[in-house]
């Protein structure tokens, strides 16, 4: 009876997952089709002939994916680094010390995380323009951190709260300074949380479209998202090429997510709901 139930539930769950994740298969299958096959109506479910044109054609040539991928990496890693350096100590400070206005600060960060990108877009554009920061990597990087910093803070705060203060006390008795105790004793304890926020920082930076699109007009600075948005019109209905680009764009965040899945899921849930 119990066994039957298990098998039945497994079958249902697999069926549901297959249907739900079909789009993911579709992007991959379409990316391997030839120009002729991708236009076939009705479309073929499995590519009759696997063709790597969509990939090879974009690795080299005028619209090289490689350059954009480099930009994406640079933007994603910088956004991750900045938000890590600023938000991790802040999360610790906000959870360990009773500061005047501390509670309000947490609420402010909670609201900040909900703000639409559109709100900052116009003022940031005008400010960056005055500071001559348009058409630099700095403009999108700084803008992305406005979302990753509050998120990092909200995910880590409960972890720091749950970390026993007696740990630092004993480290300080052993002669550690406040900051050294934080670095050597507290940070290792919240390592899973640090993995989560790094993943999120990177993925968020990698996935950003609108900041690079708005602040930069120089193709050489485009990350992959902005590049494919612009190529979309160029390629028209050459869907196999667009899907190949999409596949390459999806791989880094997906690999990162699957590698750190457990931490990321619990972190995302914690950060999204309560902070």
């Amino acid at each position, binding site marked *: 009876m119990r066994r039957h139930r298990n098998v039945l*539930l*497994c079958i249902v*769950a697999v069926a*549901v*997952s297959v249907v*739900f*994740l079909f*789009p*993911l298969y*579709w992007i991959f299958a379409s990316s391997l089709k030839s120009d002729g096959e991708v*236009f076939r*109506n009705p*479309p073929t479910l499995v590519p009759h002939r696997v063709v790597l044109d969509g990939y090879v054609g974009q690795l080299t040539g005028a619209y090289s994916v490689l350059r954009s991928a480099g930009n994406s990496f640079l933007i994603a890693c910088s956004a991750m680094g900045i938000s890590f350096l600023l938000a991790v*100590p802040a999360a*610790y*400070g*906000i959870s*360990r*010390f*009773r*500061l005047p206005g501390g509670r309000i600060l947490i609420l402010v*960060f909670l*609201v*900040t995380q*909900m*703000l*639409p990108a*559109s*709100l900052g*877009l*116009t003022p*940031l554009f*005008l400010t960056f323009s005055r500071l001559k920061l348009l058409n630099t990597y700095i403009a999108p990087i700084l*803008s992305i*951190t*406005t979302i990753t*910093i*509050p998120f990092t803070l909200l995910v880590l705060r409960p972890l720091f709260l*749950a970390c*026993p*203060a*007696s740990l630092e006390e004993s480290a300080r008795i052993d002669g550690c300074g*406040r900051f050294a105790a*934080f670095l050597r004793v507290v940070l290792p304890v919240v390592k899973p949380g640090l993995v989560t926020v790094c993943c999120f920082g990177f*993925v968020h930076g990698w996935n950003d*479209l*609108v900041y690079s699109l*708005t602040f930069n007009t120089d193709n050489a600075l485009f990350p992959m998202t902005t590049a*494919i*948005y612009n190529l*979309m019109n160029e390629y028209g209905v050459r*869907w196999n090429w*667009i*899907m190949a680009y999409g596949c390459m*764009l*999806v791989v880094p*965040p997906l690999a990162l*997510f699957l590698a750190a899945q457990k931490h990321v*899921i619990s972190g995302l849930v914690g950060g999204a*709901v309560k902070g």
Partner: protein
Amino acid sequence: MHGTQRENRPVRRGLGQTGQERLAGFLFIAPALLYMLALIGYPIVYNFLLGFQDVSAFNLAAGEARPFVGLANYRTVLADETMGPALRNTFFYTVCCLAFQFTLGLLFALLFHQKFSLAQPLRGLLVVSWMMPVTVTALLFKYMLSPDSGIINIILMGLGVIKQPVGWLVDRSTALYGPIMANTWIGVPFNMLLLTTGLTSIPEEVYESASLEGAGPFQKFLRITLPLLRPAILAVLVLGFVYTFKVFDLIFVMTGGGPVNATEVLATFAYKLSFRFYYFGQGAAVANILFVVLFCVALVYLRLIRTEEAA
């Protein structure tokens, strides 16, 4: 875990006492705080002021002063023929997405909450749709919805739901359903995860005693699961509203707001005003309207978590 958490409360209070400790705490927070003030606080204030100023590429280029024009920007954008559709579309899109995401998310959560061997790995796998770059999801759905070789039309015709291919994104009457479908796909895992957390917090015993009293599965769902899930449901709906209402990337890539405003939303409208027509003041005004709606919802949310915490 229980022991340490209780232990650390009084210690914390002790730490905050001296001025030196307070300074240390401030030093930990100060860099992030100053950074956020510059990059979020300042732009919000700036945007608020821009809404009352006449700022466009033309007077910026000429280096002229930016005259304050009172509510003129708001009057102009509210009278704009795009404003009506943008408001309607934003609300329609949000409500539809929430309804679909929530229903599917709840069904998924109930399914994967059952104990079976593949529950954990499969649930993890589903979250992939939430982590994908929205740009890619948008392009993918644009392809799947294309009228000639789009797979969705083929499937729906195969199932007998439609007789002939639907134009989806090219047809004004169906265009908004494209982004709704894509966003539902993105949002289901989010709903599922939050609702699963809620389900896990319902103690087994409650169900057991209900079984003893002869309650069927449907009754248990209505009388136990739904009421006890209330906090999680509220959180999911409010957060979902906030994340859905500010939609930009998805619509910008899929339809660009067209055909003829059929998918225009507040965020894309604000973007167009600022960066296609360079009426920065008007763009700021629309962004502020978007912000006010979100802010009200965020306030409701904060009130909710406060009452939950107090209870």
